[in-house]
């Protein structure tokens, strides 16, 4: 009989002690900010263009972390970001509605530019070079395709163009599925 009492007593003691320690630790080391928010912010383009409707990337990340915003709002991030976010957050994304033309950059039609500098003030990555009443041009390496400049141009001189495929950046496409994959009943995946 005493054996049972000792066992119950010691287990209760251990349970109480560990419970107190865990309870104290949970208060002392509590994480106030959602770590997910930081991770999401790191995935964002980070140019604070505001096209998602939030003030910047940080605010959009916060809304995403709380599950209050759809994952398809980021224009510069494009399809790649939506895919990454859907994987990260475990949210199914409807990619069919997303019109993805692949990465693009802005291009200024020089004969139409009047040198109003509106696009320069709009650009969040300093990717436009020019001065008042002088023709502007895009620094392609610094442009991330947020299209903010396109919207403010009074003469529609800015268009979005895809990056050219050259001998240097070309790579082989994915091999087409052969017979094995085309059969009605595919071979068990390896």
């Amino acid at each position, binding site marked *: 009989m005493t054996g049972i009492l000792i066992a119950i007593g010691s287990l209760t003691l251990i349970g109480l002690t560990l419970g107190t320690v865990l309870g104290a630790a949970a208060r002392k080391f509590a994480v106030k900010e959602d770590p997910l928010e930081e991770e999401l912010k790191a995935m964002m383009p980070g140019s604070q263009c505001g096209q998602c409707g939030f003030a910047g990337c940080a605010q959009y990340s916060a809304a995403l972390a709380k599950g209050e915003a759809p994952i398809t709002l980021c224009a510069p991030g494009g399809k790649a970001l939506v895919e990454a976010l859907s994987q990260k957050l475990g949210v199914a994304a409807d990619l069919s509605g997303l019109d993805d033309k692949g990465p693009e950059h802005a291009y200024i039609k020089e004969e139409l530019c009047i040198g109003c500098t509106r696009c320069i003030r709009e650009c*969040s990555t300093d990717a436009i070079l020019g001065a008042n009443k002088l023709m502007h041009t895009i620094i392609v390496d610094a442009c*991330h395709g947020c299209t903010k400049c396109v919207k403010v141009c009074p003469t529609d001189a800015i268009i979005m163009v895809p990056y050219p*495929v050259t001998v*240097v*950046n070309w*790579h*082989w496409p*994915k091999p087409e599925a052969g017979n*094995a994959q085309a059969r009605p009943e595919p071979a068990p995946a*390896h």
Partner: protein
Amino acid sequence: MKLFPVRGGIHPEYRKDLTSEKAIVVLPMSAALYIPLQQHIGAPAEVLVTAGDQVKKGQMIARNQGTVSASHHAPTSGRIREITEVAAPHPSGLPQTTIILEPDGKDEWGELPEPIADPFAADPRAINDRVAQSGIVGMGGAAFPSAIKLNLGGQKKLEILLLNGAECEPYLTCDDRVMREHADEVVDGARIMAHALGTPRIVIGIEQNKPQAIELMTRAASVFSNVEVVAVPVQYPMGSERHLVQAITGIETPARKLTADLGIVVHNVSTARAVHHAVRFGRPLVARVVTVSGGAIRDPKNILAPIGARIADLVEFCGGFAARPENVVNGGPMMGQPLPSLDAPVVKGTSGILALTAEEINDRPDSACIRCGNCITICPCGLSPVEMSAFIRKDNLEMAAKLGVTDCFSCGSCSWVCPSHIPLVHYFNYAKGALRDQENDRRKNERIKTLAEVRTIRIEKAAEAKRAALAARKPAAGTAPAAGASEAKATTEEKVNP
């Protein structure tokens, strides 16, 4: 010399006898030469000529720009017709900027740099400069600018210059012929390179299926105590620099490291000959030996072709096609790339042009993987092609990268051995390209973030400065109403931009 075993590898039919006994013949001058600005790894060269210019043979027509680049020279004398976009000798067939030269038929050398009389007394830097000035790139196929590899001597302690004469690709015999016909020039070039690199030893590795080359090279090297010719076993891909180093020294080059980290620099035998010409005669690299072979070629040959000669001209010189070629390949049959057009030119890295018949290619649709494991057994890099390709097929590039797909150098042994004809190496080529794109995107994203942050900081600072100026002026305005002109200007700006 003791040789060390190399993991994996295959033994394809070599079919080198088609051209191995054919002496090098000079290609008759074409009607026009097409010299692309990018024939090498790195940045394209910068054009130095304009349409209508008269140039002499050996005159520099495009200069290297950036750290990794190579110059190009006029392969013959003549007139520049135009500088335009021409299809590149590249599987994509995309156009690239090319200088078109119309030969005048005189083939006159222009003014060449002075030969270096005693290269072994010269400063290694003088030799490096000459190699860079002569536009020499690795002639085994990768076309990496040679001067950069020779510069390694100043940065690292190097032990061995390994000259790659393995030529393990089937059909190709251009290096074999160069070694047999110009053994002395190859050995001399190697000795000059070793001097530039500061390596005490030179080892020339040749596959055993080239007995004449081994004999002639051994004879040429016997005069020099530090030059050694080693016959390596016939095993594809012995000509890969990492595997040749392993066969000769027993050391395996770690992934993402260079053989130079082990104290060994590998150069191709034809590159050594080009260095000999550049240093002893001041002649830049303007021509190379190309093997034109394959079952569809009427009369296969080893041709000394000027850089920029159209591949169609080489094929015509070999009597044209005897059968319908199923595929025309630039390089060897294992690692070579299909040529979309015969109008593309010969460049510095073109080792062979193969017109292959349907039987030679044996192209069949792929069937299901039977998990025989042959691809794992033969992979010379110790990878697992079956697993990597399965992940790539399901678009899981991340897992493929974890399994080491970037360490694959696309030797094609797995595709060759696969009984189900699964295009394994095609999957890896695709994955490597797609992963490179992802990496570039990631880098660009980081750069964009920095730019945006810098701009935010700058705007904040400007606003801060304005507020400070305003705060400083307010009490001052109270005591002395007559403010300076500059301050008045600042006030108006403040009003415009509150």
